[in-house]
Structures are given as C-alpha cells and as structure tokens.
C-alpha cells in the first residue's frame, strides 16, 4: 500500500477541462467586472499575497534592527513606522481576508451546493474596497508612513503625532467594509442558498467556521469603523471625546477599539480552524471526531469572543472587579479551542493517515496553536498578565496563534484546494520541504520571544538592554529561515500553474461537494443543482460513488 492517498488521472491522457471558470471569458474586463466568486477569490489571492510580502519585508526590517541592542539600523521614528505598518498590513490586509476572501469565497458556494454567493456584485465590491484600502495604505507608506502602532492608541494618535494617522484610519475604515460585506455575503449564502437536502448538520465544518467568523465580521467591524471616525474627528476638530483636558476619556477609546479588535482575532483564526477540520478529515479518511462539538465550539468562540475585550486593558486602571468578570470569560473562551484540538487529535485515532503537505501544515497548526492558545491563558489570568503584558510574551503569543496557527492553516488550505482552483497539483516533495523549513524557522523565530517577554523586554522597542541580545539573534536567525519557507511556495506554486500534474476532480479522494465537480470548476459550479443525500465526511458514500465511476468508464 502506498503512503499517499493521491489519486490522479493518467497523466498521458488527462487534460484540464476546456470549459472552466478560468477559460469561460477572456480579457481584463472579464476579470475586473466579474461576478464569479471563484474569479474574485483569485483576485483576492493575488492582492493578499502582494500585501503579505510587503508586510513580511517590514518584519525582516524589524528583525534586522533587533540584531543589535542599539537602535543603529534606522532612526527611532522609522522603526516605529516599520512595526506599525507591519501590524496594519498583516492584520487588516492579510490575516483578516486571507482564508475567508480567498478560500472561503472560492469554496463555500460549492460546498453548500449553490451556483454563486448570494450577492455577487457585493462580493466584487468587497474586493474593490479591499484594493482601495490597500492602495491608501501604500500611499501612506510612500508618504512617510504612520507610527501609531496598529492599535491607534489615543491620545498619542490624536494629539501627539504628525504622521499620516488620518489616511491610515480611512484606509482601515474602507478595508473594514470589505470585511463586513464578505461576512454578510457568507451569512446570507449559508442561510438561504443551501442545496436541497443540505441541512445545517450536513455542512462541512469549514462552512460552520466561516459562518461563525462572518457573524463576528458583521457585528464587530462597524464598531471599529465608528471608533476610527471618532479618532479622525478628534484629530481634525478636537472634539474631545478622548481628551482628558476636555473631559473626554482615553480609556473610552480603548474599550471601543478592543470591542472590535478582540473579535477580530477570532475572525482571523476561525476560518483557519475550518481548514484544519477539512484537511485532518481528508488525510485520515475519517469523519471529524465529534462533529457537533466542533461545529458548536465555533459558534461558542464567536459568542464568547464578544465579551472578553477588557483583557487587553487589565493594567490600565480599570476597576479591579471588572477584571474578574473579563478574566473569567477569557478562561471560558479558551475552552472551545481546546475542545477542537482534542477532537482533531482523536480524528486521527483509527484513521488511515497520510502525510501530504496540507496534513503537515495541519500538524504544525495543532502543535503551534496549542502553545499559542495556552500562552493566551497565561495572559488571561490577571496576576500573570501584570508581568507579561506589553512585553515580548504578547508578541510571541499572538505570532504563535496567528503565524504558527492561522498562516499555517492558510498554507494548508491553499495546498489542499490548489488542485481544485487551478486543475493542477503542486510538487509534493519541495512543498513538504517548505513546510518543514517554515516550521523550524517559525519556532526559532518566536519561541525565544516568550523568554524575552518573561525577562521583561518590552514590545515596540528599537533598542534594548544588551543582555537580551542573544535571544534576539536567535529570533532573527529564525526569521531568515522562515522567510525562505514562505518564498518557496510562491515559486513552486507559480511553477505548477504550467508544469504541475493534472489533478482531476478529486485527487485527495475527499468528501465535500466541491470535489464532485471538475477541476477547475465551471463558472456556474454545477450543471444541475446537486441534491445532498448523505452526511458530511461520509467516506462510505464516497467509496460507493467512486466504485460507480470506475465501473461506468468504458
């Protein structure tokens, strides 16, 4: 028995289907004015990759500066701009749209059995808003950048900086509406456009995760929008809502900002968790263990996620008793994530496991997200938070969950659905190597930062006491390795567009409606509306289906 489950058509005779969403129409306008969710997903893929590499270059600059204890590579102001733009680009222009706008846009309509998302024009508008926000960020960078940190803390951002706070605020505002419309589209599609027989509990868990994330997008992002409006008014007209000399309260900004920005982190991670559900199931040939628990835990994370925002403010002079409430709720929101990790682990039990690249990334996710999530508990407990907050412990924590977690899940998903999106397989050996390099580079980069944080090294520092240098050198060394790990996929995935093996409909022998269609799919996804008559992850149904196909071929 081979140790891979990949089943490709005979490469000598296989061809990419002549009519698919990529070949249906030609010309740039057919792309820029498309309503096809798959083309929009590809547009997003190109744009977010572009911004990812800009954000990554900024990260490289940060790590270069931090090689030495002195602030000798760039002026303090420049360093402040570098880390601010790194955060803003990575969060708003990469992580938030990554899985939903690329993979989700592509796959969710097919997964529910629809021909497109509910509102295709709004989908296209989402992309244009994203591009507009992104362009404004680029303009800001060229105009001198902004140095507020991604958190726009008042009164620094409203009264004490003369950089491009306004244009950045507007850019994030616009990108926020991109996110709101994507989430709105998903919720409406999942509610109203499921195929006959597709009940809620027959939906793939990827859909559940994106549904939960969409609720957060739709309800949380508008609060960020109005907060940015207030910051803009404060900065331009001095209205005083955040200014203590006028009776305003800078802590009000903190509450309003974190009311969105905490659900934002769940917006970022939940779709990634959805990818992991799909990948672990496919590469163990098994239904996800405890489907209902995993589905409900996604919704639980979304609901609880709205009620924990003050844990970003424990040391800011809030009422001690309020910290009791928010610390308790933070502990509660950690539990559903733990449930998911164990459910995925037990999906492996008595499965039939292979280790293709998506699975390797999924394993990386599980280990790294466990560490990241557990260190979140360190921070949710108020006593330890006093010592660890605002240090590199926080930086390490969120990079573990966002990069070790979310980015790995994104790469896992890209590799998993690559054959569906392009009709071609990526080269397996080099991609497994890239996954390994990424994993090693990641740990080397970010694990020393936990120690740095415990030792007390503050975040957002361009210079630091010399005794912290060694750990910083390790971290920078790891960043170099990590950079290689992220560059390789760009190279081989682009290579695969022309030279990759023809994938066929279902190279992974996966369940899910998307794998029953051709690769790449037709513009309308289905020739006729499918009727869902089996449960999600029904591998027995799949076996029967494939047996039928084999016997029906001449």
């Amino acid at each position, binding site marked *: 028995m081979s140790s891979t489950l990949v089943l490709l058509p005979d490469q000598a005779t296989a061809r990419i289907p002549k009519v698919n969403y990529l070949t249906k129409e030609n010309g740039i306008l057919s792309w820029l004015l498309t309503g096809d969710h798959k083309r929009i997903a590809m547009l997003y893929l190109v744009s977010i990759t572009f911004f990812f590499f800009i954000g990554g270059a900024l990260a490289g600059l940060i790590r270069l500066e931090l090689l030495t204890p002195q602030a000798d590579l760039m002026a303090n102001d420049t360093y402040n701009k570098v880390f601010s733009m790194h955060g803003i680009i990575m969060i708003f222009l990469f992580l938030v749209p990554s899985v939903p706008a690329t993979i989700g846009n592509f796959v969710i309509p097919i997964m529910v059995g629809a021909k497109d998302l509910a509102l295709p024009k709004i989908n296209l508008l989402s992309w244009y808003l994203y591009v507009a926000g992104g362009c404004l960020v680029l303009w800001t960078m060229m105009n001198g950048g902004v140095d507020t940190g991604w958190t726009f803390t008042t009164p620094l951002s409203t009264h004490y900086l003369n950089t491009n706070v306004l244009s950045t605020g507007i850019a994030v505002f616009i990108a926020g509406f991109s996110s709101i419309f994507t989430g709105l589209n998903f919720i409406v599609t999942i509610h109203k456009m499921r195929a*006959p027989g597709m009940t809620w509990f027959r939906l793939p868990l990827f859909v559940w995760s994106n549904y939960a994330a969409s609720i957060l997008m*739709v309800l949380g992002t508008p609060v960020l929008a109005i907060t940015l409006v207030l910051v803009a008014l404060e900065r331009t007209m001095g209205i005083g809502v955040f200014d203590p000399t006028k009776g305003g309260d800078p802590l009000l900004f903190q509450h309003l900002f974190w009311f969105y920005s905490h659900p934002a982190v769940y917006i970022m991670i939940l779709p990634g968790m959805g990818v992991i559900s799909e990948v672990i199931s496919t590469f163990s040939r098994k239904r996800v263990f405890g489907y209902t628990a995993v589905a409900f835990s996604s919704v639980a994370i979304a609901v609880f996620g709205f009620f924990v925002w003050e844990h970003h403010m424990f040391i800011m002079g809030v009422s001690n008793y309020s910290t009791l409430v928010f610390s308790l709720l933070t502990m509660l929101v950690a539990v559903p994530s733990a449930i998911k990790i164990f459910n995925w682990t037990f999906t492996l039990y008595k499965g039939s496991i292979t280790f293709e690249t998506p699975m390797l990334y999924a394993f990386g996710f599980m280990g790294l997200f466990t560490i990241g999530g557990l260190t979140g508990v360190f921070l949710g407990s108020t006593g330890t938070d006093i010592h660890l907050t605002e240090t590199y412990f926080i930086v390490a924590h969120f990079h573990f969950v966002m990069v070790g977690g979310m980015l790995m899940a994104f790469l896992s998903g890209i590799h998993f659905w690559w054959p569906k999106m392009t009709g071609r397989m990526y080269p397996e050996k080099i991609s497994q190597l890239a996954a390994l390099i990424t994993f090693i580079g990641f740990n080397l980069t970010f694990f020393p930062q936990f120690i740095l944080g415990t030792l007390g090294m503050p975040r957002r520092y361009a210079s630091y006491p010399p005794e912290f240098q060694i750990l910083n050198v390790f971290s920078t060394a790891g960043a170099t390795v990590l950079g290689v790990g992220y560059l390789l996929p760009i190279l081989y995935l682009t290579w695969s567009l022309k030279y990759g093996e023809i994938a066929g409909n279902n190279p992974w022998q996966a369940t899910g409606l998307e794998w029953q269609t051709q690769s790449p799919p037709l513009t309308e996804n289905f020739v006729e509306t499918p009727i869902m008559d089996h449960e999600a992850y029904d591998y027995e149904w799949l076996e029967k289906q494939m047996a039928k196909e084999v016997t029906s071929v001449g």
Partner: protein
Amino acid sequence: MSDSPAIIHDAPEADAHRAHPAWQRHHFETVEQQADTTNFAMWLFLLTEIMFFGGLFTAYLIFRNWYYPAFVAGSHQLNIWWGTANTGVLIVSSFTMAMGVWCAETRKKNGLVLCLILTFILGLGFLGIKTIEYSEKIEKHHVPGFHYSLQSFLDPASDPKIYKEYHDKPLGRDMAVHTELYFSLYFAMTGMHALHMIIGIAILSVMIFRARAGAYTTGHVTFVENFGLYWHFVDIVWIFLFPLLYLISRHANP
C-alpha cells in the same frame, strides 16, 4: 433550521434553462429565493448599521452620566420645535415610503412615483430643517473646534430666548467646557444620521426615474422593498436621537 427552498429538479435531460422572469439572477433557483435572500441581506446590513451607531450612543450615554449638568445645558440649546418638526417629517416620509412599497406590490406605477417623490421631498425637508438648526449653532459658536464659545453656559442670561424657557443656572467653567463634548456628540450623531439620509435621498432620486420607466411595477419589487427597509431604519435612528438629544432634559435643571 431548514430554510433552503424545496425544489425538485427534473431529470438531467430536461430543459436546462427553465423559464424565469427577466430580473432573476442566474445563481438563484427561483425569484422567491432571490427576493427572500436579498431581503435577509438587507436586514443583516441594517444590523451592522445598528452596531455602527452603537458606538456613538455608548459614548453619549457614558458622558451624559458623567457630565449631567453640561449635557442638560447643551440640550437646552436645541430647538424643540424644529426637532419635533423633523420627527414629524420623517414619520410622514416613512408612511409615504410604505405606501410606495404597497404601490409597487400592487403594480400602481403612478402611485409609486408619487410616493417616491413625496418621500424625496420630505427627505429634503428634513435636511433643510437640519441646515437651519446647524446654522443656528454656527452663529452661536457652538461648533466644537471652531471658536467654540462658553458664553451661553457661563452666563445663560445672555441668551434671552432660551433663558426665558429654562432659567438655567450658570455652570462653573470646568463643567461648562464639557458642553463642547455634548455638541461633539450632537454633531457626530446627527451628522452621521444626515449622511445616511443624503445617501437615501440620492438613491431615491435614481429610483424615481426608474419607477417612471416601470422598473418596479412589473413584479420585481425587491429593490423598493429593501430600500423601504433602509428608509425606515434611518427613521428609527432619528426616533432614538430625538428623545436622547432633545427631549430628555426638557424638565431638568443643570
């Protein structure tokens, strides 16, 4: 939850392109699904708008709690009659809008056009009254950040019309400066509301032309219905703004 439509398809060999009204988009199975879906989408969008305004309402309630005398004094500066007039205008415009939706549903083209025009005019009327109110504020230097003046609050008697009605006590200077906060929130909340009105009126003007061409009275009513929802929402936001800004301190003393 099973709100997916129950459609049984014919065998694959049947006519692949079933007959459907011209306005049905191809990713929908039926016009009913299309109408249901877009309606749900509009409700969801309005929910995001509630969250959007929510931040301003939160700020207003917190600061009113902290600086009660300043907020009472600031509220006394608003003209209750213009505010009531605006409330009346908006409620009537919601009525004309609802009548417009009924006309579209019952395919009365001329009725629809009339209702849309009336709604449009009432919307403009609202904005006109708002302009009058805003210009009063500008005259009295009650616009935050633009030569804001504390005169009316340090010496209420200097404002005879309002003093006659309320007989407010003068505020200490440290409390008087908080009236700027009141007006900041007043302009932010009513300004954001007015912006939504302007967007609505702009869409209305396009709708009037399309209604005259008969676009909404051939059975495709979803655009009018969904716009009606938006218009009612903007009305409801004002129903919250009016008591919170104008009415709440009518009988209070700073």
